[in-house]
């Protein structure tokens, strides 16, 4: 067998082997790799490089070496999934560097972080003042995670006691002018429904680049032709407006009538409508 066919064969089989090994070793990002995983990755690459470009060494030796460098990280990963102490040993632990707003100088020194490094990392998190930090740790990967003091945390809906309607993830039902049946079935809707909705908006499905349905069953679309304006869904704002109008009407009737029984009825129902509006308002936005 000529040398070049051997090289071809070796390279092909090694590419396949390497592909499966990287697949089985997991989905971690390069930046999340521990030193050990990082090194074993390099060594695997090196072995493949040597054995695919030269024929000096028997092919089996290469496979054998790869097997070792695959099995040991694989086992280490399996054990560290099960055992916390083993995980601490192989992947390292996070170190607290700021606690109760005070910098732990000893821990900082232990991790080899200078005060400049700390400031730099905090700046990357948009924090320019150490006094704004309540708690910070150095993760095993070397990055810093920061918990700002309560008053420096961004304001959330929970903080101001705002009630928001719960939402689920929207489903994409039209892609490149074609209906995706599976997401549609997830929402327990069918193509007939989709056709009616598109007809309401006066567009045909071929013109739709992307269409999504939110958890309230509202369809929003983007067209290929950006000059055409798509009507904004009006059902919900319209409902709220009608409810408000009815409430105002009832109040008006209560003022107009002289029949005390009717007056009482109008007032009671106007109040009921008011509570209904208050309850439904967050859901109609």
């Amino acid at each position, binding site marked *: 067998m000529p040398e070049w066919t051997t090289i071809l064969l070796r390279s092909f089989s090694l590419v396949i082997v390497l592909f499966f090994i990287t697949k089985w070793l997991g989905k971690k990002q390069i930046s999340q790799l521990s030193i050990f995983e990082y090194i074993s990755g390099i060594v695997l690459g090196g072995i493949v490089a040597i054995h695919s470009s030269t024929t000096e060494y028997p092919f089996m030796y290469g496979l054998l070496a790869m097997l070792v460098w695959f099995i040991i990280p694989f086992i280490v990963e399996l054990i560290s999934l099960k055992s916390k102490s083993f995980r601490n040993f192989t992947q390292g632990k996070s170190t607290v560097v700021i606690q109760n707003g005070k910098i732990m100088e000893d821990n900082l020194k232990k991790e080899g972080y200078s005060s400049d490094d700390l400031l730099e990392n905090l700046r990357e998190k948009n924090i320019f003042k150490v006094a704004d930090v309540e708690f910070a740790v150095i993760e095993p990967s070397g990055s810093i995670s920061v918990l700002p003091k309560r008053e420096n945390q961004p304001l959330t809906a929970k903080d101001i006691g705002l009630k928001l309607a719960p939402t689920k993830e929207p489903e994409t039902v039209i892609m490149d002018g074609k209906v995706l049946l599976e997401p549609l079935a997830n929402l327990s809707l069918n193509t007939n429904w989709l056709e009616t909705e598109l007809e309401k908006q006066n567009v045909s499905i071929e013109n739709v680049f992307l269409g999504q349905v939110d958890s309230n069953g509202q369809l929003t679309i983007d067209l290929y032709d950006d000059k055409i304006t798509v009507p904004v869904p009006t059902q919900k704002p319209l*409902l709220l407006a009608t409810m408000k109008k009815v409430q105002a*009407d009832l109040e008006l009737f209560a003022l107009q009538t002289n029949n005390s029984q009717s007056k009482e009825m109008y007032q009671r129902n106007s109040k009921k409508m008011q509570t209904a509006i208050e309850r439904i308002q967050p859901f109609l936005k």
Partner: protein
Amino acid sequence: MTVGSDVKTCFASIKSIEATLTGLAVQTTENETRKLFESVNQIIKEIKVDLDKQVIMLSNEEPQYKQ
């Protein structure tokens, strides 16, 4: 326009609200949202019943406008 027709218009609006709410409750996949729409719909139904009686009473009071 008489009071009777005003109240009738309002009654029609309430029926439209009820229909929209029923539609929304059917469409949503979120359980909490559906429950809210249904409970609000219940309130609307109570108002509808009250107003229905009023419509009948008013049309009896204004027989001249009856076709």
